[in-house]
């Protein structure tokens, strides 16, 4: 049985207190929200914080607010709350469906949207016990200098495995990061970095406090598809989100939108819809989108299962995501 090493816990009640603690302790502190990612990772010795800053009691970080052009989602809003939230059902239904596919019900009641966006990247050679990792001489992401996925790899390719990130990137969302000396807003596209060792721009001392999701127009259709062995619990083997602006009589004409594929490497991958813009969204257009995505996606042996199969599944998942968008 894996045990947790000792750490201290602080439980601030305001954002100011929380960011002051994070600033004071820098790399020695970790943020705890729902704990569903942090605790298993601590058990595996993937982080060794001296201080855990538990933000569960911080006021004002929970709930979804209609802020005109956007929905503002507090970082502590649980995935279970998002699944059923009336504002999401109306303005961002794809996000509700992506949130509903994270883990299982117990973890969705604990896990938060902020936590899912900051989910540590995952890899077969990383999400293992310290004993297991030591036997291989550790890896590029943690404690070692060798990548076991890419021969001579110099950059970590651990995979972004967060369902809501794929969808929120397709929706053009941005996050709000608070530090002691101010607040900044970062579009999700600029939030994720192509480095599995640290795949977000969150600096030491910064806290993700809110997600801002542009409300859909009546033309926007949102779809999400996730590849996994079991219909619950599992992280994605492939994650595809699509925001499609479709106008006119069915099948309708594509006027805009974005396709995003994730669970590949550290950053979700954007696939432009330019090739089908102005065209009818018929089977031919959907197939072309699948081909385009297939050409851009190169699954690796960083997560479970045969990468060739996962690549073959890209067009299938694109089709499922579009179907989810059109028929949900």
């Amino acid at each position, binding site marked *: *049985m*894996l045990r*947790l*090493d*000792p*750490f*201290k*816990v602080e*439980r601030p009640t305001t954002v100011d207190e929380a960011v002051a603690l994070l600033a004071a302790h820098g790399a020695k502190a970790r943020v*705890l929200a729902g*704990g*569903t990612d942090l*605790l*298993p990772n*601590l*058990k595996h010795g993937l982080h060794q914080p001296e201080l*855990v800053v*538990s933000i*569960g009691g911080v006021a004002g970080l929970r709930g979804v607010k209609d802020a005109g052009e956007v929905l503002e989602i507090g970082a502590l809003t649980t995935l*279970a709350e998002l699944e059923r939230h009336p504002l999401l059902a109306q303005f961002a239904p794809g996000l509700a469906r992506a949130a509903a596919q994270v*883990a*299982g*019900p*117990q*973890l969705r*009641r*604990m896990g938060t949207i902020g936590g899912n966006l900051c989910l540590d990247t995952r890899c077969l050679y990383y999400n293992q016990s310290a004993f297991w990792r030591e036997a291989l001489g550790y890896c590029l992401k943690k404690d070692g200098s060798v990548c076991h996925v890419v021969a001579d790899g110099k950059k970590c390719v651990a995979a972004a495995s967060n369902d809501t990130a794929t969808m929120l990137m397709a929706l053009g969302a941005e996050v709000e990061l608070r530090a002691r000396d101010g607040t900044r807003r970062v579009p999700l596209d600029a939030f994720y970095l192509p480095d599995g060792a640290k795949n977000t721009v969150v600096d030491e001392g910064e806290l993700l406090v809110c997600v801002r999701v542009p409300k859909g127009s009546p033309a926007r259709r949102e779809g999400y598809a996730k590849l996994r062995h079991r*219909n*619950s*619990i599992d992280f994605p083997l492939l994650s595809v989100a699509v925001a499609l602006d479709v106008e006119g009589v069915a099948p309708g004409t594509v006027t805009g939108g974005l396709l995003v594929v994730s669970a590949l490497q550290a950053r979700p991958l954007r696939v432009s819809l330019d090739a089908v813009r102005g065209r009818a969204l018929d089977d031919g257009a959907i197939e072309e989108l699948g081909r385009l995505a297939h050409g851009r996606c190169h699954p690796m042996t960083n997560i479970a299962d045969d990468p060739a199969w996962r690549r073959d599944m890209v067009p299938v998942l694109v089709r499922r995501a579009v179907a989810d968008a059109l028929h949900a």
Partner: protein
Amino acid sequence: MRSTMRAELRFTLNGAAVETMVRPQARLLDVLRDTLGATGTKEGCGEGECGACTVLVDGRAVASCLFPALEAEGKTVLTVEGLRNASGELSVVQRAFVDKGGTQCGFCTPGMVMATTALLQENPSPSDDEIRAGLVGNLCRCTGYVQIVDAVKQAAELAAKERP
């Protein structure tokens, strides 16, 4: 030094006020089993995947193996030990699991029973699909889940009959 650090924790467990000292890194599961001796709640995977450790915190079914104990401060926790009524009778969910044989080795059962208790509070008459969706976070390595689903259905029927 650090390993002897203790923090105060107060919460309500199965209706009774609890006040204890815990290690800051302790999980709710550790406090229940090791400190308070409430060993009905089981540790399966320890990673939040199997549901054996499911307890209700303020009425919501959560994985106590990933729930930091200090986060239970001031909250109300219900475990399988708290399901019997004042006269010691099993709850309808427990009776239905016994009647339908929704248990083999029994290790997953406390978690199944707690998840079912929460499910029926949210949705008193779930369909088969809703039952399966409600229990997808609970793994049983013995059975094919058929008798477990039967038990949940029976529990819903029993509860409907016994409702005043």
